[in-house]
């Protein structure tokens, strides 16, 4: 299966040691259209942080060096970025990025519960609250969102789904991806797969991943 097919069917593709000496932005631009989000740096450096060193509006501020639960990025936004590019600059062979397709994650939940599940961001955005559907469909596409920290269930079906998704253990479920060499690049479809992070052992705190959001991908 080629990279494009893998991205479409599995929701992710792993590109080992992709142009290890190039900048992340140039790699990202070669793979697609970089998202320009006013409130965020285009290339964001992700380093493990102790819980008390990070604010509570980021995952490190909630989980520190512990495992990050499965989630999609910016799930509390109406339209989260479509693709996430995670590129390894300083590897940590023992830290894993588990990836799980939403179809597998939602197995066992009735389709009507999935369709009806509504969530609200835990905090207002720009002074406004909104109701967000777990799976938001348009004629052209389907957008799946999940974040147990940044989203609150707004109805019974959402609680049912949340209970199911919370019970999934990332380290035991899904595909375990290790970004263990400089240039290792993981491209995720943020609208169809969940991703997490395993706990970070003491000898891996120098791990450095750069993240770029893409609106389109060209593989």
């Amino acid at each position, binding site marked *: 299966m080629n990279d494009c097919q893998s991205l479409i069917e599995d929701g992710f593709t792993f590109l080992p040691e992709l142009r290890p000496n190039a900048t992340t932005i140039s790699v990202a631009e070669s793979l697609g259209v970089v998202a320009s989000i006013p409130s965020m740096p285009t290339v964001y450096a992700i380093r493990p942080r102790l819980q008390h060193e990070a604010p509570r509006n980021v995952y490190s501020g909630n989980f520190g060096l512990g495992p990050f639960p499965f989630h999609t990025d910016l799930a509390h936004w109406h339209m989260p970025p479509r693709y996430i590019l995670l590129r390894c600059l300083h590897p940590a062979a023992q830290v894993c990025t588990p990836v799980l397709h939403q179809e597998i994650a939602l197995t066992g939940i009735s389709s009507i519960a999935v369709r*009806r599940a*509504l969530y609200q961001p835990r905090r207002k*955005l720009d002074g406004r609250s*909104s109701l*967000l559907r777990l799976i938001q469909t348009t004629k052209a596409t389907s957008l799946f969102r999940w974040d147990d920290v940044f989203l609150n269930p707004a109805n019974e079906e959402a609680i049912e789904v949340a209970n199911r998704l919370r019970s999934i253990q990332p380290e035991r479920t899904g595909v375990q991806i290790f970004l263990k060499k400089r240039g290792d690049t993981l491209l995720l479809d943020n609208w169809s797969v969940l991703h997490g992070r395993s706990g970070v052992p003491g000898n891996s705190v120098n791990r450095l991943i750069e993240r770029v959001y893409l609106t389109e991908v060209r593989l």
Partner: protein
Amino acid sequence: MNTEKLPHEWSKESLLNKAQRYAETMLKQERDSWEFGFWSALTLELLARAVLAATSPALVADNRDWDNIYYALGHQPTTKKFKPKSADTTDILVRLQSVLPEFTREMLSFSITHVNRRNTELHSGALPFDGLGTSKWLSMFYATSRALLESIGEDLPLLFGAAEAEAAETLLQALEDQASKAVLGTIKAHRTVWEEKTEAERKKLQKQSETMASRHWGHRVACPSCSCTALLHGTTIGIPTQSLEQDMIVERQTMLPSKFECLACGLKVTGYSKLNSCDLGDTFTATFRYDAVDYFASDEDDESYQGLEEDYNEY
């Protein structure tokens, strides 16, 4: 596709998600409580807005101020102290009837009545939902909701859950059966009266109805009661098509049946669901022929007679 923090407050998604919230609140009430009816009216209002917004949020805007349309299109008007205003619910419903063939005149009438109950509830001391038995409105509420939801590719279970949707389907089936029985009863009664007439009377009435049932006034069909030629009237659905045929502009408009009348036996049937239950529910095409002058000309000719009374022979 660009990232967006917040949905537009007039987007289909926002309105539909809120309609679902209202439907969930409605279903938590006792069926015979005023709150059940009240929340159903709010659900219907939001659902109607969501369906119109599915075509474009601009259709939900109060178009008396262009800033509202500008806002609906995702821009921020520069007018000082601008507050976005959407169209009144009655306007929303009337617009829906124009753009959505499935939203029949019956559904429009029901929706306006039901939404007006909500207005009365909120703006007066009257109690329009108290004592309003569900048998009077719930079936039509679900029929209307179903038509609206299906027009945007959704269904009753999305808004009301699987269990309630199943109960709703039972109500809808009963509504259709009831309409069907009522109409068939009326047809049978008219047929009995028709058959009791003398042959001479029947021939005379048949000839009259044949003459009066001109294509100019409606669609000619066979009466289900007496088999004479009768007229079916309809409401327009979709946009008309034009073609040029032998120097004439021919405009064809699809019509959804709304009213039937037979001048021979006197049978009258009003409302699409009743017409459908006696096999008069098929759409028909109204054809209009114009010559190019009539079709494209303005009323300039009439301007030369302005100020004059109507033409009369001298008196």
